[in-house]
């Protein structure tokens, strides 16, 4: 078990390392001049040249990459003209745009995205697995048809439409909920939840159809298995059969899919964040990409990459708990 975790951790580091290399390489060939963008529209060529020098953009790409690795491992000192700005390890560098430390930018925004993703996950699992279960047990009935229709409608609608509808209905028209603005969990848990309820719902409505379908089909598959027949033949009530035996067999694929979705939620929640005005990682990433702000892009991509990797390790561990035949090796 410990050996397994160690191997997975080493694997994760290698993946993230490769990811950073790819981003550096892509930036090198991508169009756009970070110095011109950082300097602003009214800079003359001389000023742009100065900015370029200041940001060390004249160095070859491998030198820049080497500096980046050094910063990660040992931190970095930047001269600000008047003094020295120290950036602790792991240092992702300074934003080209405003000289803010990337680490700070990320730590400000990570809780927002994490709250959004994890909360939405809880909701979409409840909705998706719940309605999948119901559809499997009431196969062919009205319940199944209605549920299938609802979840499909959810998936087929883009998030900004669902989000806008929710905002209009609950915030503008009914006035039941505040227009979302992020309140930290540590500050006021109740306000945190109230403000995030709509974004969670929007994401959950979109994701849950997949889960409903997956749960339904793997549930039906498990219910058709021989060991379910055994318990029926011994007078075990249908409710216990579903709860104790069938559901357990149906869960492993749901766990695997959850890990993938949760991971991608960290990088892809930008639409939801923008719509609901939540200052999360997605917004940061889009802005940084538009301004060719390499340190910020690398930082955000590595953090979301780490989230994907960690979610998958957790999924593997849960998988092994759900199915004891799986040996972690």
């Amino acid at each position, binding site marked *: 078990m410990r050996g397994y975790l160690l191997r997975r951790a080493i694997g994760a580091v290698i993946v993230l390392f490769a990811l950073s290399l790819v981003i550096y390489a892509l930036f090198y060939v991508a169009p756009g001049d970070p110095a011109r963008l950082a300097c602003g529209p009214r800079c003359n060529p001389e000023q742009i040249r100065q900015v370029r020098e200041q940001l060390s953009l004249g160095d070859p790409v491998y030198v820049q990459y080497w500096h980046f690795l050094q910063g990660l491992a040992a931190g970095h000192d930047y001269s600000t003209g008047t003094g020295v700005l120290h950036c602790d390890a792991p240092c992702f560098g300074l934003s080209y745009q405003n000289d803010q430390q990337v680490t700070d930018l990320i730590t400000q925004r990570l809780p927002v995205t994490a709250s959004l993703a994890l909360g939405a996950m809880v909701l979409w699992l409840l909705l998706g697995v719940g309605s999948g279960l119901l559809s499997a047990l009431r196969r062919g009935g009205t319940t199944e048809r209605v549920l299938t229709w609802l979840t499909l409608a959810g998936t087929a609608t883009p998030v900004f439409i669902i989000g806008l509808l929710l905002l209009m209905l609950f915030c503008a028209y009914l006035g039941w909920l505040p227009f979302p603005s992020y309140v930290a969990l540590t500050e006021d848990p109740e306000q945190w939840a109230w403000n995030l309820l709509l974004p969670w719902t929007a994401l959950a409505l979109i994701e849950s159809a997949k889960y409903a379908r997956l749960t339904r089909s793997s549930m039906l598959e498990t219910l058709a298995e021989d060991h379910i027949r055994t*318990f029926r033949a011994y007078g075990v009530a249908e409710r216990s059969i579903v709860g104790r035996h069938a559901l*357990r067999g149906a869960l492993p694929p749901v766990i695997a899919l959850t890990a993938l979705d949760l991971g991608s939620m960290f990088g892809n929640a930008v639409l939801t964040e923008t719509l609901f005005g939540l200052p999360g990682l997605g917004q940061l990433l889009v802005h940084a990409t538009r301004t060719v702000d390499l340190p910020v892009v690398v930082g955000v991509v590595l953090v979301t990459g780490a989230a994907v990797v960690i979610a998958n390790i957790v999924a593997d561990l849960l998988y092994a708990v759900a199915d004891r035949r799986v040996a972690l090796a």
Partner: protein
Amino acid sequence: MSPLDTPEPLVQVADLSVTFPVGQGAAVRAVDGLSFTMPPGGALGIVGESGSGKSTVAYGLLGLHRGTGAEVTGAVRVAGRDVLAAGDAELRALRGPVAAMVFQDPLSSLDPYAAIGDQIAEVYRVHRRDASRRAARARAVEVLDRVGIPDAARRARARPHEFSGGMRQRALIAMALACEPRLLVADEPTTALDVTVQAQILGLLRELRAETGMGLLLVTHDLGVAAGNVDELLVMKEGREVEHGPAREVLDAPREDYTRALLAAVPRIDVRRAAGDTATAAGEPLLEATGLRREFGRGKRAVTAVDEVSLTIRPGETVGVVGESGSGKTTLGRMLVRLLEPSGGVLRYRGRDIGGLRERELRGFRGEAQMVFQDPVSSLNPRRSIGESIADPLRTAGELTGSEIEERVRRLLHRVGLDPDAYHRYPHEFSGGQRQRVGIARALAPEPKLIVCDEPVSALDVTTQAQVVELLGDVQRESGIALVFIAHDLAVVRQVSDRVVVMRDGRIVEEGPADAVYDAPRHPYTRGLLAAAPSLAPAEAAA
């Protein structure tokens, strides 16, 4: 004991019919007007080919057709309770304490995710609501111990995959025993097991009957299994009763032709192969294995499946390979056709070393050595018509045109006794025996010199078994193909083999001409195997 002497029979079935809808208004009548009774403590064997409706009857006794869409008419009473009229709760109360069922496939019949002891305890607590969790667990350990699971207290925490096939079947019997049923319904309880384990399980059932006085309804296609274990036999065909009477009478003096045919199809372990069938193997060896080894896994967890096996196969001969599950016979068979690469040893085909060749270098060999697999259901692609499946190896060879291939496939279908027009039909439209014929046709397609058959008939009932074995024999006589026939059923192997190899724990323990091995086995393991084989003589089987 005649059922008429007993005031209240344990089982009373009158004019039972079960009809399954098969879509578009059509229906299949699986059981048609069947009636029988069984006294308390009695033992009835229901025998018949697959599709004869015997399992459907067994399921009907526990009301298991409810909710499946099947239409059940007639009357079924078990221990005085009307199964067809009972409410759901009443039916659940019947399942277990009154009639408990043991299923055919012990691997899939237990929840793979839960501990075996917990599964038994759960069933126990369903019927003994006053029992505490602790008491239910204790009861599970007690019954596991009773059915002969060693170190039951510890093994109760194991999951099904940690048990062998025989132990799983014991665990299922323990589950039945936990509820102290008055009737045990066993649906092909030993079909998935090898002979030695089968003998142990049948022995256990006899012991438990003597001890608890419960009745036994044994459903089986194997008359040898029924012979020593039941008082009465009911022979079924196409949902109807063919013959019903005391087991001894039915076996020794069958009244009906169908019963006689069924008895004749049972392979006899003590009958020599007809002299004209034996091939005179001569000439250069076709395939020669020397010190063949195969390991699975690495390091501490490495398992040696085949260990230093040497074997020579000459053109036109049939070599039987027998052994229990886990003896390495399948691994050996797969190495012989190079579906597996040997870990060690030398494998020569016509003098050329093929043991270490890569896939591309094996091309010529692939057409000359073919395999027929055990499970005709899963070894055919369900999404391709059978004609396509048979044509595939010919297309890969790329020597014939499309119409030549179709012509050849049609001839092959005819050769294996199928309608050539079945070319465009799909595997699910065929019975098990027909699918195995398709498997044989596919193996014959590239005109091979060697076919390795891995348990080709063990999924089939006796009659179909006899037909497929006969087909293999015919094909061999015509074409002079060398056959390697792998099976756990000793009698079938004797029927087809010139020479026999007995395997145990990856090694060959005995090898020789079939009659020599069967009539005068030298190795104690061979003697044990032969003794465990079921026999049609009840006295002998029960011994």
